[in-house]
């Protein structure tokens, strides 16, 4: 039992399953495949953003500008689509990825070449990007009628019961998994955050790794800009306001250490799904709207508490025979002070 639950990911899976079971008790049909596909589809954007955020957090940085990036890019492609309906969708999506990547690169450049702490740089660009979205649009909305049907409907097209939006998230998860586990860049991410000095000594360019982490995060935020606008069929300056904190919360719930170097793609995805399930379920099971915020806050705290208990240091065993005695003594207040 304890060996299985050693893995944070499995614990999260268990918690999510318990939650869904509990919710479907209140709202029958909540656990139906259709409804679950729906939840996943709904959480897709958060998952994609969380994966970008994870790459950045992995390097001991943070990207607070993801939501602002999403807003700017979403506005930009929506305006492009409205102004030039002839531009084919793939080109627009590439544009979204490119704009997002450029905005990410601006963050990355400041962190890499100027040496501004990531949280400061992105706190600055958070307001700048959203402000620029306002300047770009003059504050006007881009409405459903102004956008082309292809632009709006493609992510909703169901394939095997799941809309393309959900498939996009699956594709991004797959790509990011390969990047993290199988590429030099992915391993550099772990190294740069885990021990920057050691990374330097190992020939990893920590600054450049951070830069590309920001570019990745930015490109994914740009993609989400398009996805968001098409999903909700409207573009305005305030979309996804405050979403940056959700992405950070998803990462941390998923076990990505804010100190860098620790975490897995599976963790980030599950963290995002966890938040998605909570957000989706509360309206469905008829919780008073006034209670929702407090409940989600409480749930986040509990999840973090659970995570922390899992992560408690096991302690080295110097005494050879201690391993045998350990289970009975584990309650002894011995770990406490050595925080």
């Amino acid at each position, binding site marked *: 039992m304890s060996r299985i639950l050693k893995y944070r990911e499995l614990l999260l899976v268990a918690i999510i399953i318990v939650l869904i079971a509990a919710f479907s008790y209140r709202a029958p049909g909540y656990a139906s495949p259709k*409804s679950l596909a729906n939840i996943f589809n709904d959480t897709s954007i958060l998952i994609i953003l969380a994966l970008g955020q994870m790459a950045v957090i992995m390097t001991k940085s943070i990207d607070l500008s993801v939501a602002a990036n999403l807003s700017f890019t979403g506005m930009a492609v929506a305006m492009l689509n409205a102004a030039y309906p002839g531009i084919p969708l793939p080109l627009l999506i590439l544009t979204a990825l490119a704009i997002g990547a450029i905005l990410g690169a601006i963050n990355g450049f400041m962190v890499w070449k100027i040496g501004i702490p990531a949280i400061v740089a992105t706190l600055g660009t958070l307001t700048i990007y959203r402000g620029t979205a306002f300047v770009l649009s003059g*504050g006007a909305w881009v409405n459903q*009628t102004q956008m082309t049907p292809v632009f709006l409907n493609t992510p909703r097209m169901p394939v095997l019961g799941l809309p393309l939006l959900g498939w996009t998230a699956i594709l991004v998860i797959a790509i990011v998994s390969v990047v993290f586990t199988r590429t030099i860049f992915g391993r550099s991410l772990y190294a740069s955050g885990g021990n920057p000095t050691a990374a330097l000594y190992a020939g990893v360019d920590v600054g450049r790794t951070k830069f590309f982490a920001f570019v990745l995060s930015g490109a994914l935020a740009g993609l989400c800009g398009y996805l968001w606008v098409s999903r909700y*069929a*409207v573009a305005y300056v305030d979309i*996804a*306001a405050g979403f940056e904190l959700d992405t950070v919360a998803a990462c941390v719930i998923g076990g990505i250490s804010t100190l860098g170097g620790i975490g897995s793609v599976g963790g980030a995805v599950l963290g995002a799904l966890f938040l998605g399930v909570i957000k989706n379920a509360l309206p469905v099971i*008829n919780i008073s709207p006034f209670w929702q915020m407090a409940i989600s806050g409480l749930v986040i705290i509990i999840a973090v508490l659970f995570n922390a208990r899992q992560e408690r240091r096991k302690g080295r065993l110097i005494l050879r025979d201690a391993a045998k005695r350990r289970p009975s003594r584990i309650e002894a207040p011995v770990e406490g002070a050595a925080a």
Partner: protein
Amino acid sequence: ENIKIGLVVKSLGNGFFEAANKGAQEAAKELGGVDIIYTGPTTTTAEGQIEVINALIAQKVDAIAISANDPDAVVPALKKAAQRGIKVISWDSGVNKDGRILHLNPSSNELIGNMCLKLAADHLPGGKGDFAILSATSTSTNQNTWIAEMKKQLPKYPGLNLVTTVYGDDLADKSYREAQGLLTSHPNVKVIVAPTTVGVLAASQAVKDAGKIGQVYVTGLGLPSEMAGAVHSGATKQFAIWNPIDLGYSATQLAYRLVKKETDGKPGSEINAGRMGKIKVGDNGEAAMADPFVYDAKNVDEFAKIF
């Protein structure tokens, strides 16, 4: 020296208020010698509006016409404005009595409440069935007033059954999720009434995505330009709104008359509002503009070009 009127809105970047600004500019041009300062906070907060009001006071504007994020919180700042000789009125979303000379309702609250119920009943076969309300933030004054009116007048529509009220906070994603929640948890709900544009839009989208067009209808208050898509998709048959251009126009007219001392704005007075004719100030210093206008597939495109 031109007369300076500060037109303070809930937040910048909202189509409704952009349209109101158009009306205000129109009135300014018509009256001559009037400068409109169109301003507001970034997000819909009272604190943000107070900073804006302070800036207007500092510029020594002649009048402030405000659509308030909070009827009470802006009162101290507006009182200070009044002390420095600035004429203060509220419009659209009101301010408490002691913070302004008069308040201009876009329409009477009873009429709006009634209109929302009528729209709901029209969408239901025989006017019978369950409906739910998807509002903006739980603090916004005008939505709350209308919801209260709807509840008050509900007995007039015996077939209608209000199941629940949820809040989308005027955020597209939250409203969408709340609408989705309504569809799942209340399968009997046949109509969602959203007295706010973001709400109607998001709910229409949710209904469409759930493949429930024709089973569940969305209606409420929204701008034609924003609602056209929903009407064409069939998620919405009809919706209503007053003309925000007229609202901005009238608010500017009223403020101008007060500055020019053509009226004191006391209850009972009738104020000249240019092309809108005379507006009468009622009890509580509240005035109403006109009935909301109903839009459907036939006329929505025509108006979508305007606002």
